[in-house]
């Protein structure tokens, strides 16, 4: 009971999202894994949001109806657990009145979808999980692109260059499974053959030699791998050690540039087809973003950071267009305006539109490794 | 026959700890088992009370074969025991230690607990009465609230006996009840054992204190290397050459 009174005390006072005077603060919530095994991922998503907010604030905030607002990001750790996400959201709503809450995992999003429509806040859902946007929740924005668009260009390239035999070694995450479910039929439809299929659990596997050995005994031409970049790179490296000469289809979660850091060179990844790394992107906002990110976080930017960065800008633009900072429904309605009004130099990705389901329709860029170089292959 | 063993045998690996022992307990009497260290006396008790399964042979109690019964079933039939090293709930008080002894005669279960039935109340009362009764019997009135860890060795032995008595046994097996107890107190304990027999509970004990055994026992069995080497009245045993050589030594009574 005493803890409760503490909370209610901290509720009152200065954290109100707006006041009548000329300056206001918009609190944006974030609930993601900041400790434990997924902390790295959580941090990278948060970094993008933080960076956007900082830029906006440094530029004097943004103005709506004559009033200047600054962003205040309130990050809470949920250890990747849905119930913690729900608790955090309740807290963010109660204490900070956040109109938007970012969450980078599907479990958290689903836990929030239970009450986000009644409590009227937007979910910035950084997850490719289709269920999240297919469920018809009117206040969920799906940030990353759906993966299914990658399947065809990946398949075509790999099959043409290396051959028809595919061994699939996706990660045992839901995303990996969904990817596989789309990729394999596509591969077979194009006349290919799936010679081996088994998933790797990166959170439990100490060594990939065993599974790679088994995959290679079927003499595949192409290996389908993916998951977090670094362990994925290890899988590729070990496949080479075991004598694999073919190509890799790399699921979009893994980034070629991060993988290269592990393998030491792009030679190991020769013949890979994957998503274009942000650092190689020629979208108008990308170079500046990459540079600023490196300076700020002493780390390479990834799409997690980039997409959340741009999403934060889009939300702000949508607020401006909707002329409100707290009416979630109005903000949602003006998301397309937000996309349209997005300044050119912030366009780290090309996002022409938002779907009816609330998913941002990010343009997909495919990259391949040829002769030890990353080459931009297809733009859809 | 009241309780008897037929060709009871226990092997530990290559060692035959109890070797084809035939023994019958005389009802209402004090039966003693003596023998050198490692003769297999404690093991013999463990076989009867169901703690070890015998390698071969049988244990019969009132005509029933109890050889393979688990210890709790055997206890229910009315066979109680104490351990060589006193085995009590050290952190609980004396009453709580003894109270639970009557549990095997009660029937209340989880449902009774949840609904606080009459039966539970009645049985709790009975357990308490029983506990007070046996504590009084062993001479520990007014000790019920003492924590067991804080009472003396001899008192612990009495608590152990009280606990065994609370199960309402017909026969009680005592493994070296007088070990670590001084002569004065040993006498008190001997009196207690006699009192137990007077209350129609058969006693079977292991003891190294010959004076006590010879005074108390009606019948003695001597084990050596797991084998029964002699059986008889104290007089017979004291004069048995084999026993003297194997166990008693020159001065028959230490």
């Amino acid at each position, binding site marked *: 009971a005493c803890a409760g009174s503490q909370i209610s005390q901290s509720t009152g006072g200065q954290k109100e999202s707006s006041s009548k005077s000329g300056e206001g603060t918009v609190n944006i919530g974030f609930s993601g894994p900041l400790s434990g095994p997924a902390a*790295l991922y959580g941090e990278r998503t948060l970094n993008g949001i933080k960076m956007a907010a900082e830029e906006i604030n440094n530029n004097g905030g943004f103005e709506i109806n004559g009033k200047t607002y600054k962003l205040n990001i309130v990050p809470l750790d949920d250890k990747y657990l849905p119930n913690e996400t729900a608790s955090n959201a309740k807290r963010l709503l109660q204490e900070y009145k956040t109109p938007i809450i970012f969450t980078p995992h599907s479990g958290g999003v689903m836990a929030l979808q239970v009450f986000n429509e009644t409590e009227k806040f937007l979910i910035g859902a950084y997850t490719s999980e289709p269920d999240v946007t297919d469920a018809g929740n009117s206040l969920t924005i799906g940030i990353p692109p759906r993966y299914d668009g990658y399947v065809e260009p990946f398949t075509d390239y790999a099959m043409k260059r290396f051959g028809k035999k595919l061994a699939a070694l996706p990660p045992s995450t839901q995303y990996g499974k969904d990817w596989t479910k789309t990729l394999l039929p596509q591969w077979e439809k194009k006349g290919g053959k799936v010679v081996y299929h088994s998933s790797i659990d990166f959170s439990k596997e100490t*060594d990939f030699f065993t599974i790679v050995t*088994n995959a290679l005994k079927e003499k595949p031409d192409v290996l389908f791998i993916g998951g977090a970049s*670094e362990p994925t790179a290890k899988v590729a490296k070990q496949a080479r050690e075991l004598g694999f000469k073919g190509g890799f289809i790399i699921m979009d979660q893994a980034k070629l540039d991060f993988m290269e850091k592990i393998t030491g060179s792009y030679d190991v990844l020769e013949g890979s087809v994957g998503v274009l790394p942000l650092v190689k992107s020629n979208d108008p906002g990308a170079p500046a973003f990459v540079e600023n990110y490196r300076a700020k976080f002493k780390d390479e930017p990834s799409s997690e950071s980039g997409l959340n960065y741009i999403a934060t800008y889009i939300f702000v633009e949508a607020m401006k267009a909707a002329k409100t900072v707290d009416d979630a429904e109005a903000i949602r309605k003006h998301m397309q305006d937000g996309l349209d009004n997005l300044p050119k130099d912030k366009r780290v990705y090309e996002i022409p539109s938002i779907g009816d389901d609330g998913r941002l329709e990010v343009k997909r860029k495919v990259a391949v490794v040829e002769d030890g170089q990353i080459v931009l292959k297809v733009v859809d | 026959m009241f309780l008897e063993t037929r060709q009871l045998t226990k092997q530990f690996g290559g060692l035959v700890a109890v070797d084809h022992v035939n023994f019958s307990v005389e009802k209402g009497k004090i039966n003693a088992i003596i023998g050198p260290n490692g003769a297999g006396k404690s093991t013999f008790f463990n076989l009867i009370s169901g703690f070890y399964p015998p390698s071969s042979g049988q244990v019969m109690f009132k005509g029933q074969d109890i050889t393979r019964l688990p210890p709790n079933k055997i206890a229910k039939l009315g066979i109680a025991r104490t351990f060589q090293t006193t085995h009590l709930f050290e952190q609980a008080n004396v009453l709580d230690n003894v109270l639970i002894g009557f549990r095997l005669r009660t029937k209340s279960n989880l449902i009774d607990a949840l609904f606080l039935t009459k039966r539970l109340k009645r049985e709790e009362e009975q357990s308490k009465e029983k506990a007070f009764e046996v504590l009084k019997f062993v001479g520990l009135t007014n000790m019920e609230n003492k924590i067991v860890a804080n009472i003396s060795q001899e008192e612990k032995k009495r608590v152990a006996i009280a606990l065994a008595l609370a199960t309402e046994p017909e026969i009680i097996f005592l493994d070296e009840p007088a070990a670590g107890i001084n002569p004065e107190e040993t006498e008190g304990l001997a009196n207690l054992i006699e009192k137990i027999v007077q209350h129609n509970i058969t006693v079977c004990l292991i003891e190294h204190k010959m004076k006590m055994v010879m005074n108390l026992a009606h019948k003695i069995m001597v084990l050596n290397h797991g084998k029964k080497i002699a059986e008889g009245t104290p007089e017979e045993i004291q004069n048995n050459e084999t026993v003297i050589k194997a166990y008693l030594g020159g001065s028959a009574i230490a």
Partner: protein
Amino acid sequence: MEIFAQQIFNGLTVGSVYSLVALGLTLVYGILHIPNFAHGALYMMGGYITLTMMTKFGLYYWIAIMISMVIVGLMGVLMERFIFYPLRDAPPIQDKIAAIGILLFLEAFAQFVWGADYQTMPTPYGQVVSVMGLTFTMQRLLIIISTVVVMILLFLFLKKTFIGSAIIAMSQNREGAHLVGINTNKMAMLTFMISGALAAIAASLSSPINLVFPGMGHLVILKAFVIIIIGGMGSIPGAIIGGYILGFAESLGATYISNDYKDIFAFILLVLILTFKPTGLFAKGGHS
């Protein structure tokens, strides 16, 4: 057949790492009678310290490993002194929770100091060797050989030296150890030292084939527990053999049964073993 041989080799590699981790765990269990849930964190620290020594201070691989063994060993000692020693009279569950506290701390600490990202440990033994159609990498051979050497040394130490026997004696009866003049505090610290050093060497050997990251301890610790249970807790040969059993079970299970379900098989194997032998395969007899 070739596949079989290759998988035996793979199982041997993984099993070696498991055994080393399990050995440290089982030693500490023997002394303190508590499963040290923070052991995985020591493993992780071992990986990071070796890595830092190599990358930040430019030390040679083996020197870095030595330093890491010492540092992690000392961390083990500190853990014993400040956490397990004060808790020596408390029931064992308390130790488990205290250990979990340390685990949380060390993981957060690693994340704080080294960041949450994956890092690679370079190795001077990157070569790939192919013999009769089997692929070895030097690093993997190294893992297997070093593990055997470490085990033999440990065995000789425990069986053939007085200090080693004193550790075993103490694990069986602390007061008895006092009575013969063994300084039990020193022995407990020594045991933790060894346990930490074993974790460090296991991590340092296996890191070049995997990655270094704050959660890396989780990969091995649960399995290490399974191993010491299969082997009979506190049993040293049990930990070694259990480690290899699990290594082979995994590699062969993944090959001939199913890769996706091999974990389930490994754990069901354990449950079956315990069902029929409730105290593990190598539990020692005797009572006191």
